[in-house]
Structures are given as structure tokens and as C-alpha cells.
């Protein structure tokens, strides 16, 4: 046998066939592949999602005829004007304030956890971190919210435990406070707030952790090397580089709070939030134009929020 006979052919024919030829074709024309991959989601987002959004927006320029209960399909700003009625304005302000508080608190609680996970956790600890953060998302959201209702209820485990350690009066005093207080934690703004923070916290932790993960450790060493005390390093290096993650997380917590209509219905007082307003107007009341106008509000608020974040340079480090 000569050496040449033992050599394989220059062209690798080991995997010829219809699928192999298709793969060859796609390998040689990446644009075709990209088109095939992106066409379905783009159709979905472009037509179904954006289309629905614009249909919704259009609805808000109609009005409900109070007398007949029918929708009058002529252009009017009357529905939009309704948003500025004190009762509706209240709903908007209440929701925005709640969303802002929930976001702030999630960021404050989430940052140290994310920092630990990104900088210190390795191997098994990291796996455990992901599990701990994600685990609540595996069980039904409703179950978790009802669980909180039981924890926070007047005769609930929290009040009971506080009583047992003699801290009952502290809870009483807290509930007697205006605004944040109420008949019980589960029927107060504080209760709604606690449940919101609990439910959305993973959505804050994960983006911050991802952002911190991308900050090389030697930047922190370099900062210390150049004379910066830990606090200075945090303000001038760690925080600015984590900011895109914090903003991404806050987009989640803020917009999820703006849109949620179940939590305030189960835990909290009788005050309405935006989501509940949309739900009631389009369901029970059949006032689709007002529901549409209400649902545009979170979109506008998010647009304003992102513009401000951008102006403040939150995305400069991207």
C-alpha cells in the first residue's frame, strides 16, 4: 500500500445528504440563516404585538356613550381628559409612588446579594445562589401572594410571632401611622409593598449580578492601588459600572409593579392601582376606551423614566 492511497480525499464526504447540503447552504449564506431565524419573531412582535398596541392606542381616542353604554367611534379627547379626574389621577399617583418605592427598595436589598454572588460566590455557592433566587419563580405566583396574605394577616404568623416576643405593641404603633398603616399589615400599603418587593426581587438581582459579573476584579484593585478607599471605589468604579444592570432591573420592577392588578387585590386596602383600573374598566364596566387610556399611562411613564436614565448616563458603560 502506498502512502498516498491511505490519505483521505481533499473533500470531506463523510456527511453528505439532504440535511448536510442544507447546512452547507446556510453556512455559506449567513444572511439567509439570520432571515429564517428572525422572520417569525419579527412577524410576531411587529404585527401581533405592535399592531395590538396601536389598536389599543386608537381605542383611547374613542369614548363610551354614558347613556347607551355603547362605544362611540368618533375621534375625541374626552377619554383622555377623564384620566385627569381626581379619582383617576389618584390611581396613577398611587401606582407610580408604589412602583418607585418598590424599585428603590428592591435595588437596596438586591445589590448586596448580587454583589456577593458576582464577586465572591464560586462553584456550588453560585449554583445555590441561582437556585435561591429562582426558586420562588417556580411556584405559582398566586400561591405565593396568598401565602403572604396569611403571613401578614391580623391573626397571621407575623403578628403572632411579634406578640410572642413582646413586640406586639410595636406593630400596633406602626399600624396606627397614617398612610403606611391600616387595620392589619395585609390590609395596608405596607403589606402591598412587602409582597411587591418579594415578588419582583429576582428581577432586580439577576441583571445587577450580570452587570457586576462583567466588572473585572482588577479594576477594583487598580482603584485601591491608586489610593481610593473602599467607599470611593464603590462610588466611582463599582456603582457606575453596575448602573446599567440596576436600570435594567428597575425597568422590570417598575413596569411590573405598574401593570400588576392581582397583588393589590389580594393584599392591601381597597384603593385601586393602574392594573386594577384597566381590568375593571375593560371587564366589568365595558369602558374599553378608558381602559385603553389607562394602559397607555405605564408606557408613557416608562418612556419618561428611560429618557431620564439615559440623560443621567445610565447606559454610558454599555
Amino acid at each position, binding site marked *: 500500500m502506498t502512502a498516498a492511497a491511505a490519505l483521505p480525499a481533499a473533500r470531506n464526504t463523510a456527511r453528505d445528504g439532504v440535511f448536510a447540503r442544507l447546512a452547507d447552504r446556510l453556512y455559506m449564506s449567513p444572511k439567509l440563516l439570520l432571515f429564517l431565524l428572525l422572520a417569525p419573531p419579527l412577524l410576531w412582535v411587529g404585527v401581533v404585538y405592535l399592531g395590538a398596541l396601536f389598536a389599543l392606542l386608537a381605542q383611547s381616542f374613542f369614548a363610551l356613550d354614558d347613556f347607551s353604554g355603547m362605544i362611540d367611534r368618533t375621534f375625541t379627547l374626552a377619554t383622555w381628559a377623564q384620566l385627569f379626574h381626581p379619582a383617576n389621577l389618584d390611581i396613577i399617583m398611587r401606582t407610580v409612588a408604589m412602583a418607585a418605592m418598590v424599585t428603590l427598595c428592591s435595588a437596596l436589598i438586591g445589590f448586596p446579594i448580587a454583589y456577593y454572588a458576582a464577586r465572591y460566590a464560586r462553584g456550588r455557592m453560585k449554583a445555590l445562589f441561582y437556585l435561591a433566587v429562582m426558586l420562588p419563580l417556580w411556584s405559582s405566583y398566586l400561591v405565593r401572594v396568598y401565602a403572604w396574605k396569611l403571613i401578614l394577616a391580623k391573626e397571621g404568623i407575623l403578628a403572632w410571632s411579634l406578640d410572642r416576643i413582646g413586640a406586639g405593641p410595636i406593630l400596633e404603633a406602626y399600624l396606627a401611622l397614617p398612610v403606611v398603616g391600616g387595620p392589619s399589615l395585609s390590609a395596608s400599603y405596607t403589606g402591598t409593598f412587602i409582597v411587591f418587593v418579594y415578588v419582583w426581587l429576582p428581577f432586580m438581582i439577576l441583571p445587577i449580578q450580570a452587570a457586576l459579573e462583567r466588572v*473585572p476584579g*482588577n*479594576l477594583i*484593585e*487598580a*482603584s*485601591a*492601588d*491608586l*489610593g*481610593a*478607599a473602599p467607599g*470611593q471605589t464603590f462610588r*466611582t*468604579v463599582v456603582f*457606575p*459600572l453596575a448602573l446599567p444592570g440596576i436600570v435594567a432591573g428597575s425597568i422590570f420592577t417598575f413596569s411590573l409593579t405598574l401593570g400588576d392588578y392581582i397583588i393589590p387585590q389580594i393584599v392591601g386596602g381597597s384603593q385601586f392601582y393602574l392594573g386594577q383600573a384597566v381590568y375593571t374598566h375593560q371587564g366589568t364596566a365595558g369602558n374599553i376606551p378608558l381602559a385603553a387610556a389607562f394602559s397607555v399611562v405605564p408606557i408613557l411613564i416608562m418612556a419618561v423614566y428611560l429618557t431620564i436614565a439615559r440623560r443621567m448616563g445610565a447606559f*454610558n*458603560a454599555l
Partner: protein
Amino acid sequence: MNIVSPPTSETVSTGLEIAVAFQGVSRHFGSVKAVDGVDLAVREGEFFAMLGPSGSGKTTCLRLIAGFEQPTAGHIEIFGETAEGLPPYRRNVNTVFQDYALFPHMSVIANVGYGLMVKGVNRAERAGQAREALALVRLEGYEDRKPSQLSGGQRQRVALARALVNRPRVLLLDEPLGALDLKLREEMQDELRTLHRKLGLTFVFVTHDQGEALSMADRVAVFDRGRIVQVGTPEDVYERPATRFVADFVGGSNVLDPDFAAMAGGAARWTSLRPEKIRVAPVATNEPVGGAGGIAEVIDVQYQGSVRRLVLGFAGRRLVAVVSAAQFAGIVPGAHVGVSWPRDALQPMAGEGGDP
């Protein structure tokens, strides 16, 4: 305030003051002895290289000086002050990191001015000094760029300026030229030497490149497995390697075992014979030059531009010789050549050769 200030009576390097002193310093990570009982004295104003293969402990030593690591045993002094227990931001020592570690969200000028900013120097003063430092590394006109908009060589200069602007007592350089291509590397080597002369600072330079260490440093410490095996001038280390490891790692010497060394005309000790000290001649004309030699077989020939590296089989051993590329143009493996070396080219090494 000038970065380049003419030496005054206090700053004149007397060569007597010790900039960095290690006394029996160890840094163990669990069972790994990254640095194991190192004694070291870097003199003020010296260009000191720490040379060794990766994992030999040289970078850990640098990090011990910077303060990123704390010794598990031993004592470190920087200009007479105890350094252990002192965090990096309380040490008047600055580092040029291997991959530069520039702050990606800051402009070049903000990066360079960072050390001054955290010390509370006002904006105008900061900008002035940062510009001066950038001029020192010949990088004017790049003030407003982001690090991502710079080439590797430019980033290197920014990192250097960022460290120098703080006027450190000791400048630590962690393989600063490792990521640069050959041309730029040689250019930066010259530049670092020039800067060192101009500033009169103490430079501690970590490298795994023996050529770089020999050509740049005043003194070289050779590291092997967490210990320093030899400290000396580049000539000391190259001409008189203390151990087999040094002979082989620095300049790739022929390490002769005691039997062979005795046969080759030296003492019965582990002996170093530098490749360029071996004379190679056509068999017919070869005669030993007051030393020893014989006939060797060519095993491999490597053309390296200015020189030709011959791998030879001699008396059952492998010898490497380096000859001018102009010689032996047609030589092929299997040919025979005459080899010889003067007796003083045989450099016996201390003790058993140092290595187990």
C-alpha cells in the same frame, strides 16, 4: 508641581537605602506555597526585575508589595515602614497591571487623574498634572478618548501615566509588555528605560521573558517554585548561573552533568555551557582551542534570522550551539561537525546544582 523634578539633595539615590525589603516572606494558599520564604532587598532607584516561569511566585511577590495580598509569614518593609496589614490605598506604591485595568467608563484624562481625584486634588490642578503625565508617555491629544478607542500600546501608556501621576515611591510593573507585539514591545522597553533614568524612581518589574529582564533591569531575581534561586546583575545571572534551573531558564544553557563536565574538561560538577561559547567547525579543520571538544552529529538545524541554532549529539548527550547564520548554510541533519570550547566557558554551579 512637576512629575519630573530635578533630583534634590534628599531625593538623590544613594543606592544605600532599601526601597522594598522582604524577610522570610511566605504566601501560602491552602497547601499551595505561592511564595515560600523569600528574602529580598530592592535598592532605591533600582530597576529590579523578578523573572520566572508562570506559577513561580513572582507576581504574588509583586502583589504583596502592592498590598493586594498579605503574607502568611514574614515581614515586608517599604522604605523602612512595615507594610503588612496596610491596605493598598495606604501604600505609596503604584501598579501598572498586566492587562492595564483602565476604567472603561472614564476618559483617558479621567483615568490618569483618578489617583489625584480620590486624594481630593481640585479639577484644574488634576487636569494639569494628568496632561503632564500623558506628555511624559508621549500621548498628548488623546485626553478625551475612552480606553476602548485606544490601541494596546496606547492603553499601556495610559496605564503608565495613571500610575506615575501619583509620584509613587515604587512603581510596580506586572508583565506590562506581555500583551504587545514584538515591535511595540521593543519600543516600550526603550521607553521604560528612558523613563526610569529620567524619573529616578524604583521600578519593580515582573516578567517571564528572560531577554526582557536581562536587557532592562539593573538586577534580576530569578524565581523558581515560590523561591528566589538567584539575585544579581544580568551578567551575573547569565554568565554565572547559580543553579541548573537558572542556567536553563535564562538563556537556555547546556546543562552538563558532572560526568560529562569532567570529560569535557571541567570539574566533576553540574556545569553550564552557553550555546554561543561552543565553536563549531567543519570536521577537517576542527581542533580544540585550549579546551576540549570532539566530533558531534547534527540532529537538527533551526534558522533564526541572525543566527543558526544547531542541535548536536555529542558523546551520547544533546548539545545546543549557536552560530552565525552566515555559517553552515548547507548543513543538514546527519552531517558531522567538530565542536570545541574553551575551559573558561564551563561554568560550574553551586553545590549539587541547586535543584533536586
